């Protein structure tokens, strides 16, 4: 369901699809993100999330449908081209080089030059300031980025994208490898990025992370769109149920019930979980 708005959204995919040879990796996906909006892409492993972001980021080209940036149809041949259109991606592996100092990573590919050499004092200072603005106070920007915690590294990657003029930020499972507290920190940066007027595409498989920060939700399953909702059209519980594949869990619990006492106990637990899924665990984070 595409919504027509007066201003063209920053990114809009219409019925986009991608085949790898005879394998259909993605089919008929609609997605849009406007300035100051967070669009969440939810899906389990193999749902096509990676393919989707690779298309948006310029690593792959879509084979079907259309991809528009600010109303202009595009066909990116490299991540560089996407970057030039203001679309920056923060990958799961963050695209940082662990052995290199934080400031070298921050400016990697966008080094500030002063004649033939780099303006190192400026780059150090800017890195420190940008991270401070994002709320990370680093001891030493000369420390190898590999020595930072996962959340800190994530934030370095996000603030780097913001600093270099990203209009759209694609975040590939930024909370996947993080603990509860660190995830919270990252979610705060997502909101901060949105408040700075960026469009954010947030890829995750965790509806509890997606719902509080998202404005639109795209659910993917087996390369196809399972649904595309605005926040007003879906509740957290519905989202969770769709995501977790509530029906499938129930089916699994039935199967287990037929397999002896121990399995039945497991089935009971599972069933309870299906019913409790998502309920009374999260307070509403709606901040509009």
């Amino acid at each position, binding site marked *: 369901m595409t919504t027509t708005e007066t201003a063209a959204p920053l990114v809009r995919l219409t019925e986009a699809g991608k085949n790898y040879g005879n394998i259909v990796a993605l089919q008929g996906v609609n997605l849009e993100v406007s300035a100051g909006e967070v669009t969440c892409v939810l899906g389990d492993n193999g749902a096509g999330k990676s393919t989707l972001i690779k298309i948006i980021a310029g690593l792959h080209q879509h084979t079907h449908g259309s991809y528009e940036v600010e109303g202009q149809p595009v066909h990116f041949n490299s991540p560089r081209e996407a970057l030039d259109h203001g679309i920056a991606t923060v990958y799961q592996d963050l695209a940082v*080089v662990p052995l290199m100092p934080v400031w*070298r990573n921050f400016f990697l590919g966008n080094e500030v030059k002063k004649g033939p*050499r780099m303006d190192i004092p400026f780059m150090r200072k800017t890195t420190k300031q940008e991270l401070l603005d994002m709320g990370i106070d680093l001891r030493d920007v000369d420390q190898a980025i590999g020595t930072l915690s996962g959340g800190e590294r994530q934030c370095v990657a996000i603030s780097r994208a913001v600093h270099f003029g990203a209009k759209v930020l694609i975040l590939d499972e930024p909370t996947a490898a993080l603990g509860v507290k660190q*995830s919270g920190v990252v979610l*705060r940066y997502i909101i901060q990025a949105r408040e700075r007027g960026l469009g954010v595409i947030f890829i995750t498989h965790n509806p509890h992370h997606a719902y509080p920060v998202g404005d639109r939700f795209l659910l993917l399953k087996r390369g196809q769109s399972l649904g595309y909702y605005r926040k007003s059209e879906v509740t957290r519980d519905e989202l969770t149920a769709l995501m977790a594949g509530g029906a499938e869990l129930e089916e699994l619990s039935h199967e287990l019930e037929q397999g002896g006492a121990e399995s039945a106990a497991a089935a009971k637990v599972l069933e309870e979980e299906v019913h409790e899924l998502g309920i009374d665990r999260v307070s509403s984070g709606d901040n509009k």
Partner: protein
Amino acid sequence: MSQTVDVKPTSPPARDERLVRRSLLSRLLTRPEIGALLGAIVIYIIFFAVAPPFRDAGSLSTVLYVSSTYGIPAVAVALLMIGGEFDLSAGVAVTTSALVASIFSYQFTANMWVGVLVSLVVALLVGFIDGYLVVKTGIPSFLVTLGTFFMLRGLNLAVTKLITGNVGTNDVSTIDGFNSAQKVFSSSFSIGGVQIRITLLWWILFILVGTWVLLRTQIGNWIFAVGGSAPSSRAVGVPVDRVKIGLFMAVGFLCWFTGMHILFAFNTVQSGIGLGNEFIYIVAAVVGGCLLTGGYGSVIGAAIGAFIFGMANQGIVYAGWNPDWFYFFLGALLLGAILLNNWVRQRAEAMR
């Protein structure tokens, strides 16, 4: 989880109270070349103690000369290694360069400098082909350059024999331009009665340029990055392929330079020399703190590594030891240096 979305701006704290000012020593210990430096000092002291001739300024000059002939290609080999690749063809590429310049000028009765320039083009081309094959095929550079190593080795011998009918080239010392080329690539001068070979000055220049490029320029940042993580570098827009091909060409350039030195030092070139030297360049780089996996290392470290090699090479002679044992010592030195490097790095990281 309850999601609070108040974005509180963090106020800058007072200047880094968490950072204890580190001593010069502890900062020094985090440098990649520190292990090599300690090793060099120990080896220097050992030979200084056991080999009286080693103490002469003249001997030091010889040691430095030998070190420079290995150290010059090692500068580029270290950069390449930091960029995450190997070049096993570097040793024979030196010979190829010398052969090409020599044979070209002799056969075409061209000015020596024409041969020198043709050789440069060939050397850069060999580097380009190595690099191109590595980045386009994705085959590890160890294998690609192993292939080019054997190919060059065969070409060196076969083409030389085909053209000169001999395993060596003809004497080029009477060709026009020989003298001026010799001045550039293989002359010497004396300071206070000590003969200094010009390769030492070139070596120092290449070390300075290499270090400056690596630590102070955008290219240097990219070299560290492509060696540390090529996919990450590509994702942020670093031209990974071009950096790697450029590094292979830099190795080609310094191999060419070394080949020119050999040509103008001996006037003729034996087609079979240079075998095994590629390992010495790699040893120098590794002893100097370059990680085999890329992304970490230093040009100065590689220079110290080459100096250690030069000391061991000459010191054994000065000490009157049986030179048959040389390669045993070289191997032991390599292992020792790697262990020392690992230990120092772990200590340094623990200190941070």
